[in-house]
């Protein structure tokens, strides 16, 4: 039976092959080509499920395999894959979401002339993410990490003719690259500090997990923080969250893929994989928790003031990722992975639902929507389930996972808990706002909206089901999930307090939203009329983009221009001066050549005198 794990490497290879085929075929592949991508992702899904089945049966041992990639004298850099419960879980999530997105895109993208290119990108994206998940060491992970980044760049910039898409794609890549630098330096540090220059996760676990003190505290903290920087970039944590909302310029299925299962999950997954390093350093843990908690509430508040349906969802993603980081920071791997797991489904559901809406009304501004619930019943229903899950209303999946996170937070520090609860309240509020504005009330603007085709609604239904049931794998009453994933890890048991408070926060948020946006008993400008500055601050996302522009982009541009001037006038100027000094001697000579014989003679005589004086003078020097 263990033989199946040996073929785990095929999981990412299927979509990679699809990418190669589609690229080779070029645009000629057309819609037929799209099915190649879908089939490949189906193959990945099937294989992942089979792997999962084997692991669930409990008989399989962890399997890893690797080969030497580069040999450089004493060092060997190897690549490889590893099959554990964690990786298999991620494989299933990624390949499932990826398959559903594939399916959905057949409907969403059917009129696009570059549909085969789109599917090629998606295939590469899935492949990279699957590869990342399977990685057995940090180097392998880094390689796929970067590939994920570039794929997201390609997909975000898919509508390349739109200047916004171009800018967003660029931003996505560059901002995440800041994090990548952290990760790269962390890898370099680990390479030189680890015994035998090893980068495998197993070895990392052995070295850091056992607290042998091989690596000093300072270095451990540094490594952990640098790895976290990578995760911050990828998972859109403050202060590198700025790319994520902009990434909504890509086609909506891509947003689902990026936000639900692939790119953003990579950061959390990375921290989970190297969790031993973090656990070895309290400072790093605190940093993770603080950043996570702050991001959770920070993004949630921004989400309150946005009007673009996808941007709201994007900020909710940032916020939810903050929860996951918070969970990690307070030492609950299970909580983080659990929330990641459930979030993958309901966030994919929400994005695909949003896509369905956009597909129908051709706008993304929620102020121009309304009353869609009657025309798009499936979409509305499934979206509602997703929204409830996100708001943390039992029995939907999000409730259980958020609960786990909050429980861990409360145990660690009540402040984290309070922040988490407030963020949960905001989450419920903006989701209610979103839902009621879009689906309730009367139509504003687009009127001829209709339900999407089956190829789009089926994935919605599947995800809706998952959004309902996925939470039951880990409840306060049964902790099967955590034990399966992280055997031996201690978990906090959710207390009644946590459950009650979180439910109340969620319901309160929804109620308030209903009052404002559906019932209309509270005026919408109740806040904006009193505190216009605050609303403006939220609408402009706390001016973080502007701040970056002011602090980094402009100075860099200025520095570049300055260096350009220096390069032209100082560096090259020095070269020119050297050249001109040769020329100047030449000019001097030319001036001497006046044609006057006697000038020549006089020059010669002066030269002779100088020479004689110099030679003689040398003696007395």
């Amino acid at each position, binding site marked *: 039976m263990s033989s199946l794990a040996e073929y785990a490497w095929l999981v990412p290879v299927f979509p990679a092959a699809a990418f190669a085929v589609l690229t080779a075929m070029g645009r000629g592949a057309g819609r037929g080509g799209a099915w190649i991508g879908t089939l490949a992702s189906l193959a990945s899904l099937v294989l992942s499920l089979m792997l999962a089945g084997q692991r669930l049966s409990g008989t399989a041992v962890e399997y890893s395999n690797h080969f030497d990639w580069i040999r450089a004298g004493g060092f060997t850099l190897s690549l490889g894959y590893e099959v554990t419960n964690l990786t298999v879980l991620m494989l299933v999530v990624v390949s499932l979401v990826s398959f559903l997105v594939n399916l959905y895109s057949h409907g969403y993208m059917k009129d696009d002339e570059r549909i085969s290119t789109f599917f090629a990108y998606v295939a590469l994206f899935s492949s990279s993410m699957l590869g990342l998940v399977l990685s057995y060491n940090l180097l392998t992970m880094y390689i796929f990490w970067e590939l994920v980044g570039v794929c997201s760049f390609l997909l975000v910039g898919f509508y390349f003719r739109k200047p916004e898409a171009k800018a967003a794609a660029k931003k996505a890549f560059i901002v995440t690259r800041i994090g990548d630098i952290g990760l790269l330096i962390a890898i370099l540090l680990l390479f030189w500090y680890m015994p035998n220059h090893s980068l495998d996760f197993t070895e990392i676990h052995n070295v850091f997990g056992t607290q042998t003190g091989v690596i000093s505290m300072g270095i451990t903290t540094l490594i952990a923080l640098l790895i976290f920087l990578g995760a911050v970039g990828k998972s859109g944590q403050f202060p590198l969250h700025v790319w994520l909302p902009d990434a909504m310029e890509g086609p909506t299925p891509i947003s689902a893929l990026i936000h639900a299962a692939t790119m953003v999950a990579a950061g959390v997954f990375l921290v989970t994989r190297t969790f031993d390093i973090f656990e070895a350093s309290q400072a790093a843990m605190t940093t993770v928790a603080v950043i996570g908690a702050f991001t959770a509430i920070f993004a949630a508040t921004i989400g309150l003031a946005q009007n673009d349906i996808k941007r709201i969802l994007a900020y909710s993603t940032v916020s939810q990722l903050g929860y996951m980081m918070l969970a990690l920071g307070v030492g609950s791997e299970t909580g983080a992975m659990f929330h990641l797991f459930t979030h993958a489904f309901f966030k994919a559901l929400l994005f695909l639902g949003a896509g369905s809406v956009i597909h129908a009304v051709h706008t993304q501004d929620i102020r121009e929507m309304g009353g869609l619930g009657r025309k798009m019943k499936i979409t509305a229903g499934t979206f509602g389930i997703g929204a409830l899950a996100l708001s943390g209303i039992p029995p939907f999946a999000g409730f259980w996972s958020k609960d786990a996170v909050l429980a861990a937070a409360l145990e660690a520090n009540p402040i984290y808990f309070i922040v988490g609860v407030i963020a949960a309240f905001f989450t419920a509020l903006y989701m209610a706002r979103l839902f009621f504005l879009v689906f309730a009330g009367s139509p504003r603007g687009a009127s001829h909206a209709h339900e999407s085709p089956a190829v789009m609604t089926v994935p919605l239904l599947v995800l809706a089901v998952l959004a309902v049931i996925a939470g039951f794998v880990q409840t306060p009453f049964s902790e099967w999930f955590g034990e399966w994933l992280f055997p031996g890890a201690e978990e906090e048991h959710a207390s009644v307090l946590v459950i009650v408070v979180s439910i109340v926060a969620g319901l309160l948020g929804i109620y308030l939203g209903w009052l404002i946006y559906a019932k209309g008993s509270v005026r919408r400008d109740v806040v904006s009329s009193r505190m216009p500055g605050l609303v403006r601050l939220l609408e402009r996302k706390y001016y973080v983009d502007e701040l970056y522009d002011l602090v980094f982009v402009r100075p860099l541009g200025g520095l570049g221009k300055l260096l350009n001037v220096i390069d032209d006038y100082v560096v090259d100027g020095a070269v020119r001066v050297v050249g001109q000094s040769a020329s100047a001697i030449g000019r001097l000579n*030319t001036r001497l*050549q*006046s*044609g*006057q*014989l*006697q000038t020549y*003679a*006089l020059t010669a*005589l002066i030269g002779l005198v100088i020479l004689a004086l110099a030679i003689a003078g040398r003696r007395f020097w």
Partner: protein
Amino acid sequence: MNMLASYLTLAAVLFCIGLYGVITKRNAIIVLLSVELMLNAVNLNLIAFAKYGVQPSITGQIFSLFTMTVAAAEAAVGVAILVAVYRSRASVNVDEFDELRR
């Protein structure tokens, strides 16, 4: 020895006068003559050394004979060239011989 010094001084003075003439005189003929003056300074030197030198020998005098002869040939050629130049320039002013320059 005293004798030698005065001869050498005289020769040096002559040489310098010649050099001065070459550098400053505008008339080409005088320039040529100045060159001859320098050569004569050499002759004086040679003969002084031949008589009062460290190791007096006849060679110096022989040398000066050669010098005189050759200088005469040189002067002849010089004047001939000057004549040719005068034909095209109608001037023997050295300052005006500056068509070749830069």
